[in-house]
């Protein structure tokens, strides 16, 4: 009896200690490409970069966010990668929710994947703290240049002159609209020569003559950015040391939008009972909005019967057009056991060959400027054109907080709790405090 009791106690102790101290160990999932398939693929040679020498028998873990569609795209990318590097095993472990939070915790715990998506939040956390591998040497060996990519996209992923992530895709905004609303109002559909005044006039006519609301725009820094950029404005100065919100371009853009809202031709998605502006288009609640290339798949899947179109964002009255660019990259964990294989995978996924295949699916645009013409969908093509006049809304390590202050300033003027001048003066003050580290 005593022996049994002692045995049980010993077992409990061992169980506790092992669960407590071994809890962080990762389970290894099977690789995506079976050995036979890899053998068949072996021998393929890349054309846009030089194949790198990699560690023998390397197994790398790759993680990113995304739904089933995105996961399929990257599983296919891994199959293509294995045609060139048959001896590297890529263990794809997608993290669909709370990616950034999980990645930070994993990195702190030493269990982060070898290769993963990097956005501005992760670049802020990992870039300056030595958690990302500089890719420049590997790029040099693979004969890949920073110039191969759309220049603006590398802004976020460059720290002290080194490249910590290669842009994997990008997006921008376009003027998305419902042709039937224009037909019902008896007015011409938007085109690439439209200006802000054309949007305002059309929004007025549609709101007055039809059941649709004119233009949908939430209090959101991203949708506000093209308006500001077109007037030559920005959110901070060039070296991210001083706020630039209490300035004429910002206030002029905000005043224009506010006038439309006060006149009743501009609504928010919540005003019409939608979660976001794209949904408001899908549900035929509004005639126009600024949305991005994600609308193509969204409308195809959620509202296949709704006819919608897109043109480039409207120009300001000064005739200038500007757009905002969103981008994410693929980066390598600085602590990876297989830096060469991880870098080879990153270079491959963001290469012309692979990007061309991804672009064909309509999921994302290629990050190489000479591949913009690969976009087939006419609406997508129109939206992507904004990339040529686009700018990444990146303001250094405090980008999130600064953009948040812009959204709050817009929220205040939308709600009517402050004038445009007061609201952006306050935002400017707060951004300066953030930049001062307060």
């Amino acid at each position: 009896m005593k022996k049994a009791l002692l045995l049980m106690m010993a077992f409990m102790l061992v169980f506790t200690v092992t669960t407590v101290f071994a809890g962080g160990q990762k389970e290894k999932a099977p690789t995506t490409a079976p050995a036979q398939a890899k053998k068949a693929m072996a021998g393929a040679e890349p054309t846009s970069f030089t194949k790198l020498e990699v560690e023998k028998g390397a197994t790398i873990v790759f993680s990113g966010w995304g739904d089933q569609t995105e996961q399929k795209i990257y599983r296919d990318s891994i199959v293509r990668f294995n045609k060139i590097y048959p001896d590297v095993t890529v263990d794809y472990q997608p993290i669909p929710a709370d990616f950034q939070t999980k990645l930070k915790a994993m990195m702190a715990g030493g269990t982060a994947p070898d290769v993963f998506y990097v956005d501005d939040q992760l670049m802020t956390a990992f870039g300056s703290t030595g958690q990302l591998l500089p890719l420049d040497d590997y790029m040099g060996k693979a004969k890949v240049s920073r110039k191969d990519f759309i220049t603006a996209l590398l802004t976020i992923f460059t720290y002290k002159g080194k490249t910590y992530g290669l842009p994997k895709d990008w997006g921008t905004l376009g003027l998305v609209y419902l042709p039937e609303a224009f037909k019902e109002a008896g007015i011409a559909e938007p085109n690439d020569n439209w200006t802000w005044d054309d949007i305002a006039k059309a929004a007025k006519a549609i709101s007055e003559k039809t059941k649709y609301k004119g233009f949908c725009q939430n209090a959101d820094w991203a949708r506000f950015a093209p308006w500001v950029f077109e007037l030559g404005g920005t959110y901070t100065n060039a070296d991210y040391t001083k706020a630039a919100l209490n300035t004429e371009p910002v206030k002029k853009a905000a005043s224009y939008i506010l006038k439309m809202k006060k006149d009743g031709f501009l609504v928010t998605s919540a005003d019409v009972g939608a979660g976001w502006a794209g949904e408001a288009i899908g549900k035929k609640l509004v005639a126009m909005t600024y949305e991005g290339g994600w609308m193509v798949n969204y409308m195809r899947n959620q509202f296949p019967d709704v006819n919608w179109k897109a043109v480039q964002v409207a120009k300001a009255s000064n005739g200038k057009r500007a757009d905002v660019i969103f981008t994410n990259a693929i980066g390598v964990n600085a602590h990876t056991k297989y830096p060469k294989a991880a870098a080879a995978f990153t270079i491959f996924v963001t290469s012309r060959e692979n990007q061309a295949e991804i672009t064909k699916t309509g999921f994302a645009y290629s990050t190489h400027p000479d591949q913009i013409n690969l976009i087939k969908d006419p609406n997508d093509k129109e939206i992507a054109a904004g990339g040529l006049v686009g700018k990444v809304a990146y303001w250094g390590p405090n980008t999130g907080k600064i953009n948040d202050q812009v959204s709050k300033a817009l929220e205040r003027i939308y709600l009517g709790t402050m004038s445009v001048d007061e609201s952006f003066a306050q935002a400017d003050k707060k951004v300066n405090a953030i930049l001062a580290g307060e």
Partner: protein
Amino acid sequence: MKAQRSLSEIKKKEEVAAYIFLSPYLISTLVFTLGMILFALYISLHNWNMFQRPEFVGLKNYIKAFRSEDFRRGFYNIFWYTLIVVFFQTFIAVFMAVILFKPIPGKRLFRTLFYAPSVTSSVVISMIFWWLYLKTGFINLAFDKIAGLFGGVWQNVEWLNNPTGLFQLIAKSFGGNISYDKWYFNGPSITWMAIMAQAIYTTSPTFMIMFLAGLVNIPVSLYESASIDGASPWNQFWKITFPMLRPVTMMVVVLGTMGCIQMFDYVKILTAGGPLGTTLVPVYQIYSETLGISGPIRAGYGAAMAFILAVVIFVLTYIQRKFIEEKTEQY
């Protein structure tokens, strides 16, 4: 003498056995609770981004927290939240428990139905309420129908994006005006009150169960004697039920207060602290700073805020215990 020695040996062996049995819990508590608290205290005195060596800054993080308008605002918001939610959830829980304690038909069914919101995931509940609270949602529709019955028209309210404070509304109805800048005079916003309603709806049933358990423990003889003495049901409630439930009430109020002060999930899912900071809460700020949600990771600053919050919870719990326990009659 021999018998005594063997007795103390047995006692010693029993003690060792007890510690071995307790060891699984003790080890995890030492590592994950006490260890983590000490570690948090250590990093609260440092600037730390989780990846590089912590830099000692003394009490700077604490001073920064006290100086932060957002952090003060978080406490202001959570004060109203705790005050209103704890009061209503306790009141509703007692009310539901007393009703369900009576021998009514379908009692078990009602208990199950009432309890359902408490076992539903906060994410699911939040999504349901998000839908109900839409400007074109069911709540506005219901108010519109009610207003229609009296010949009025209901102006749809954007429940989850309305920063207007309770005192602002009151001032407005008397022709006054309180500026949004003076947030400390505004009271809880409409959005904040909408979230409070959601919290009350989901937490009251849990506390109802506790009150039901408390009601079972009240001796029936007390009610019988009171009836013989001619006490009305109302008097019986105030003179017997309510005082006898005091220990449960104490627990409910303390648990409710702690839960309210640590509120996070609804804010994260529904408002992210908006509109205009009227739903900003300390735990959400701790989360954002510690994990660098919209800026650099400032784990030391987050830990300092967490310690300030812990002290507030400790003090409040102590006051409540003192206040309620002193008045609790022991039977």
